[in-house]
């Protein structure tokens, strides 16, 4: 513990010295007497406690939460000796916002007494949040001396990206072999009726279409479309980001990825994740609840990692990027290296959709409004449109997503157009 005199002691001495000077100048004894209590007060210096006088424990109401959720932090202070005045301060990381109570507290404790101090925080941004150190300051009663120390009370909070519910999703053009929720063109075992054909030996009686059979006086059977799942690979651009936290292009991209992963996994699809930074990081496609958690863990650590390295998409193993997969690339299209990767994917025949959260409203929110900012944003909009047109000419579907609009609304137009394409 570091113990030192506070500025208050210096203030007391200053006022006292000034009183004496005035006493000398005016020749009045009262001014000397006025100073006496100030000087007597200085005798109390040196009674701040020690860090061994108390112990701290911290509990948090939840260890794993989603963005926007609140947690209550409870710090328990137990005194082993009498503590005159204890000031505790817990600095909050920028990803947490104080919503209830205070993250600084003043307590006085008797020997053996325990005090609970609680406050509520809102988790504004995904990530691993460390509530590490509590700063303690032990004051004497007068406030003339204070001892300072930092007490490590480790606690890690995992804040997962908020996944918004999506009812409509871009449907894949190609299905996989496993059972799922998509109606496949191939006939076989399923629920969705397809064509009717003449009965052949070996057909199941329960598939006989009795209405058609009675009309034509021959046995006909109904064929059913198979219901299959799909492989969906989410490709996240973590090369760069724009905007101010907690609403950068990467933040909104990750929220979109979380929403898409949740929705596709709920449809029994296999979902994979590729983090396109300098070196690739990926989660191989799979399904199920455990895999959902795996993807969210990967999204938790996704961050911009500056690198000059440009990896080729061809380097991604086949089991990570299956050839029949629907690839949804989520990128603000700020880095040309990602454009090149998109072109490469399209050239390799992947069913590719690019969801591009527009960085312009996010940046505008972070900067002061001005005429030059307006002009710059308009130019930027034109430049983005030109780049998107260039990619669209290569047959890549691009959804320009204004982040003020819900993701479902942005995907709505695409789902309709893809349905038309599949029908054709």
């Amino acid at each position, binding site marked *: *513990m*570091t*113990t*030192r*005199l*506070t*500025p*208050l*002691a*210096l*203030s*007391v*001495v*200053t*006022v*006292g*010295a*000034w009183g*004496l*000077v*005035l*006493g*000398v100048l*005016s*020749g*009045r*004894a*009262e*001014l*000397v*007497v*006025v*100073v*006496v*209590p*100030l*000087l*007597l*007060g200085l005798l*109390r210096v040196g009674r701040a406690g*020690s*860090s*061994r006088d108390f112990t701290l424990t911290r509990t948090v109401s939840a260890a794993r939460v989603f963005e926007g959720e609140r947690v209550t932090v409870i710090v328990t202070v137990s005194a082993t000796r009498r503590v005159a*005045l204890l*000031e505790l301060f817990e600095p909050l990381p920028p990803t947490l916002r104080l919503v209830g109570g*205070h993250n*600084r*507290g*003043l*307590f*006085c*404790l008797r020997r053996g007494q325990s*005090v609970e*101090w609680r*406050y509520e925080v809102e988790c504004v941004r995904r990530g691993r949040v460390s509530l590490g150190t509590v700063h303690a300051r032990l*004051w004497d*009663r*007068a*406030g003339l001396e204070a*001892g300072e120390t930092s007490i490590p009370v480790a606690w890690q909070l995992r804040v997962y990206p908020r996944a918004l519910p999506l009812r409509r999703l871009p449907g894949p053009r190609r299905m996989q072999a496993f059972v799922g929720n998509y109606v496949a063109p191939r006939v076989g075992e399923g629920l969705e009726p397809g064509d009717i054909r003449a009965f052949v030996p070996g057909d199941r009686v329960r598939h006989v279409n009795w209405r058609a059979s009675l009309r034509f006086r021959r046995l006909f059977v109904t064929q059913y479309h198979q219901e299959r799942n799909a492989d969906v690979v989410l490709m996240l651009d973590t090369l760069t980001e724009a905007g101010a936290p907690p609403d950068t292009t990467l933040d909104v991209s990750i929220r979109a990825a979380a929403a898409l992963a949740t929705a596709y996994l709920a449809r029994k699809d296999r979902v994979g994740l590729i983090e396109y930074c300098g070196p690739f990081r990926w989660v191989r496609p799979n399904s199920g609840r455990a895999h959902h958690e795996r993807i969210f863990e990967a999204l938790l650590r996704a961050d911009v990692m500056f690198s000059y390295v440009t990896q080729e998409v061809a380097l991604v193993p086949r089991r990570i990027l299956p050839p029949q997969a629907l690839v949804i690339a989520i990128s603000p299209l700020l880095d040309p290296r990602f454009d090149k990767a998109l072109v490469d994917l399209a050239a390799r025949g992947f069913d590719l959709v690019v969801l591009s959260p527009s960085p312009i409203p996010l940046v505008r929110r972070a900067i002061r409004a001005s005429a030059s900012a307006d002009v710059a944003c308009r130019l930027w909009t034109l430049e983005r449109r030109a780049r998107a047109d260039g990619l669209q000419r290569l047959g890549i579907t691009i959804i320009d997503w204004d982040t003020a609009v819900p993701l479902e609304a942005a995907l709505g137009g695409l789902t309709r157009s893809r349905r038309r394409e599949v029908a054709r």
Partner: protein
Amino acid sequence: MRRLAAVLALILVSAPLLIAPSTSVVALGGAALILCGLGILVATPVLVGGMVMALGEYALALRLAGGTPRLEGAVVLGVVLVLLLETADFGRRAQHAAIGRGVFVAQIRAWAVFGALTGAGALVASAAASAASASLRLPWASAVAAAGAAVALVAVALALAAAGTPSRD
């Protein structure tokens, strides 16, 4: 706690007006009150400035009024000075902080005890000094000047101690 500090600042500034209610004292008192109010809200150095001005106002009032020394009033004013500094400082520390049960009560109790003890001690000291001055004739002005210089040296030493190497346990 800031209200208590404001009341103490008002007492500090208005006490000299009871001794000599002249225009110059009122003007100095007004300025001192503004500085004290700002100091309570903003920072201790501003408050110290206000208190320095209030002491100037007190000295001026005493000079204008003349007469016999008013030692009891001076003792009360001295206690008010200490408590004003400490309450304002504590008020600033308590701002935007969760306050545990009994903190305010314990603090007020400590100030009350300190005020009573210091007041009594100062009264005893001033009575002893009066008694001594009746029997002994010393060059008081130079003695007090020497004490002032000593206090200034102590102030410098404390400032150095505050900025210097801290002690550890």
